[in-house]
């Protein structure tokens, strides 16, 4: 999620040589910094015009040593900043300037973004995820649109480096509440307590009692209140949002996972040969607070905590791998081949690169055609949002114009927009819609829709090819190559079902009577978009994060190598530069150009 980047002092600092040049800047700190604005300007000029510091002729020092040392210097510098107010930087070490990049790097690495929200959030409809990704890469758009069909709700977990551990721990307790069996929870207390000696002897944890006590205590409290599941849930959420309690519980789960791995070192050693064996891996990757869970950690927990009580952990991976659905993987491994219906209680997690949240699966329904269908339609809806076209805030709410009606309708289960939307185009295609060609037809319809609604993507986006290819390029029967495995696995009866609904709709007047104004072709020129709150939030956050100190002249830019720049490690409010994927889309010039092209 958050990506810390070493802030370069000059735009060209990718080759090692300019480091030396840029490193001249901190020397100017000595005498220029206290003079405020002038200091910033002059500091910048020394970065722009190479000033060779006297030390550049000194013998080169091994880089590794600098790296190890830099955090101390950084610390010392901060101290001086803090103590005296006007910083006087004593150059104890002539080479200190050379460490500047390293210090910057270290500051970025240790930077903790101000995370908001509780450790464990409330259960919320997973449509929120869809909305969050509405402006993202098309692969994400498609996958997040499909997500709520399978997982109706999700629970946000704070991404402070513990989220994977926290998610599994919380879900474990929550599942036990779901089962509502007091004896079973008490059995868990006994079982976990019996693992105590294993933690000391195999895990080699000299101290685990406090951590364990907190985790067992919560189980006991849940067992005592299991008659009132609502109360038990409140207790659970409360405990997990209490800093000390949840830190203890999470650490307990870390120890459990590591203990399992250490106990099966022969199996897992080869996986972490580069760490020097499983014990070393555990001490580097699991035993340290705020260190994110990795595959082995999950394996350890799944085997020691979940498997004995027949719990299954299913992780849905939301990444940029091709496909229209999230990829899923179950722990323990053997659960992957089993029929989902035969599995025990299952914990669902959503994995996005570097982050885990908890998912809640929609109760399984009778197989119906609507999921694939609805997903298809919403792709159109949201991909045009992602386009950043002219946004017409709907006066008086979403009922103000027909486009909004369609959005609402598309959320109704079984009420597919495919059956309503492309009515104007339907007659042309209906001759081609044979049941045999149903998967192709799916795409065919959407491409027609897009053509009549204006081009949602001004520039060719490769992954959108299936929807953008002109109809003639589709062979009528053969499945097109971009068909995803999950889509092609969909039993064909449902597809045929979908097709028949659609072709019926072209003639069924009662449907169009329900939604009289749904005629997409009508608003082609200025395609209206429902006002998206995310857009507003996003714009505001951009303008506020690039805030400059007030005593600066409002017009001047803070140079990168100035300590007034928040991205400079010497700034007391240090905040590293962050990569903002939408940068090119949001700057006025770019969007203006696109807008013109589209209208």
């Amino acid at each position, binding site marked *: 999620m958050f990506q810390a980047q070493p802030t370069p002092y000059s735009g060209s600092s990718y080759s090692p040589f300019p480091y030396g040049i840029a490193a001249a800047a901190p020397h100017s700190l000595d005498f220029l910094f206290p003079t405020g604005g002038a200091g910033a300007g002059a500091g910048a000029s020394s970065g722009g015009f190479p000033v060779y510091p006297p030390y550049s002729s000194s013998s080169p020092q091994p880089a590794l040593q600098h790296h190890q040392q830099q955090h101390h210097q950084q610390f010392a510098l901060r101290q001086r900043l803090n103590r005296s107010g006007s910083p006087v930087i004593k150059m104890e070490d002539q080479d200190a300037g050379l460490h500047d990049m390293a210090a910057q790097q270290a500051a970025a690495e240790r930077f903790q973004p101000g995370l908001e929200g509780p450790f464990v959030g409330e259960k919320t409809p997973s449509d929120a995820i869809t909305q969050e990704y509405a402006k993202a890469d098309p692969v994400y758009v498609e996958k997040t649109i499909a997500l709520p069909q399978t997982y109706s709700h999700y629970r946000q977990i704070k991404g402070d480096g513990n989220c994977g551990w926290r998610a599994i721990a919380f879900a474990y307790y929550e599942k036990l509440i779901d089962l509502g069996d007091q004896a079973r929870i008490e059995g868990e207390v006994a079982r976990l307590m019996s693992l105590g000696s294993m933690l000391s002897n195999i895990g080699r944890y000299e101290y685990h009692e406090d*951590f364990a006590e907190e985790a067992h205590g919560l189980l006991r409290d849940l067992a005592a209140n299991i008659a009132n599941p609502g109360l038990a849930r409140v207790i659970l959420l409360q405990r997990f949002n209490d800093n000390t309690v949840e830190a*203890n519980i999470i650490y307990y789960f870390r120890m459990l996972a590591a203990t399992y791995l250490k106990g099966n070192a022969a199996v897992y050693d080869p996986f972490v040969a580069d760490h020097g064996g499983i014990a070393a891996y555990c001490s580097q990757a699991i035993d340290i607070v705020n260190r994110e869970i990795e595959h082995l950690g999950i394996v350890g927990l799944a085997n020691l905590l979940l498997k004995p009580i027949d719990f299954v952990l299913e992780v849905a991976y939301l990444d940029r791998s091709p496909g229209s659905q999230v990829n899923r993987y179950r722990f323990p491994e053997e659960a992957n081949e089993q029929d989902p219906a035969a599995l025990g209680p299952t914990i669902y997690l959503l994995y996005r690169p570097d982050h885990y949240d908890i998912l809640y699966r929609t109760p399984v329904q009778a197989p119906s055609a609507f999921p694939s269908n609805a997903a298809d339609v919403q792709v159109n809806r949201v991909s045009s949002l992602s386009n950043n076209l002219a946004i017409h805030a709907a006066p008086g709410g979403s009922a103000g114009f027909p486009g909004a009606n369609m959005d609402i309708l598309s959320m109704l289960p079984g009420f597919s927009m495919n059956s309503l939307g492309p009515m104007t185009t339907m007659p042309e295609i209906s001759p081609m819609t044979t049941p045999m060609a149903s998967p192709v037809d799916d795409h065919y319809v959407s491409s027609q829709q897009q053509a009549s609604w204006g081009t949602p993507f001004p520039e060719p986006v490769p992954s959108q090819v299936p929807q953008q290819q002109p109809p003639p390029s589709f062979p009528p029967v053969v499945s097109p190559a971009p068909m995803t495995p999950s889509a092609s696995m969909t039993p064909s009866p449902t597809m045929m079902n979908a097709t028949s609904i659609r072709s019926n709709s072209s003639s069924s007047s009662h449907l169009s009577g329900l939604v009289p104004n749904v005629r997409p072709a009508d608003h082609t020129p200025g395609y209206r978009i429902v006002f998206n709150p995310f857009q507003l939030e996003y714009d505001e956050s951009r303008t506020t994060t690039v805030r400059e100190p007030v005593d600066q002249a409002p017009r001047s830019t803070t140079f990168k190598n100035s300590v007034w720049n928040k991205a400079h490690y010497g700034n007391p409010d240090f905040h590293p530069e962050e990569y903002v994927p939408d940068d090119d889309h949001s700057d006025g010039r770019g969007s203006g150009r696109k807008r013109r092209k589209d209208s």
Partner: protein
Amino acid sequence: MSTKRITKEFAEVSQTPPEGFTVSLPPNASVHTWHITLQPPPQSAFFPGRFGILLTLPTDYPFKPPVVKFVTRLYHPNVTNDSLGNVCLGILKPENWKPSTKIVSVLEAVRNLLVEPQPDDPLEERIADEYRNDRPTWEQKAKAQVTKYALEDPVFPATAN
């Protein structure tokens, strides 16, 4: 919450202190500040000095590492040679700290540091260079500072909390 663990650990350390250590709590202070006196073993260059160490346990201990500071000056590559007495100790770095580590282990690590400095991870680069390249001079200076600062009972600063 953490107070329970700290109390437990303090009881352990004060009843059976690791070799060379004496531990006490400052008067009228919480269990979060420990006054520790260390007498390094004879093979250390710092023998027979007695060094005062201020151990502060953060409120979110054990999830944040304890803070160790020398109140007695010493000429050591891994300890700042000033009144702050900051110590560079691998296991105490935030990125290495493990909540399951006991304070006893921390104390033992400090003692090892006095027996065997780690010039490759220095706080005082100049002293580290000297330690590496001119051991006799370093030892001489270290001994001189022991005589100058470390022969009397360490004086702990008045605790703020």
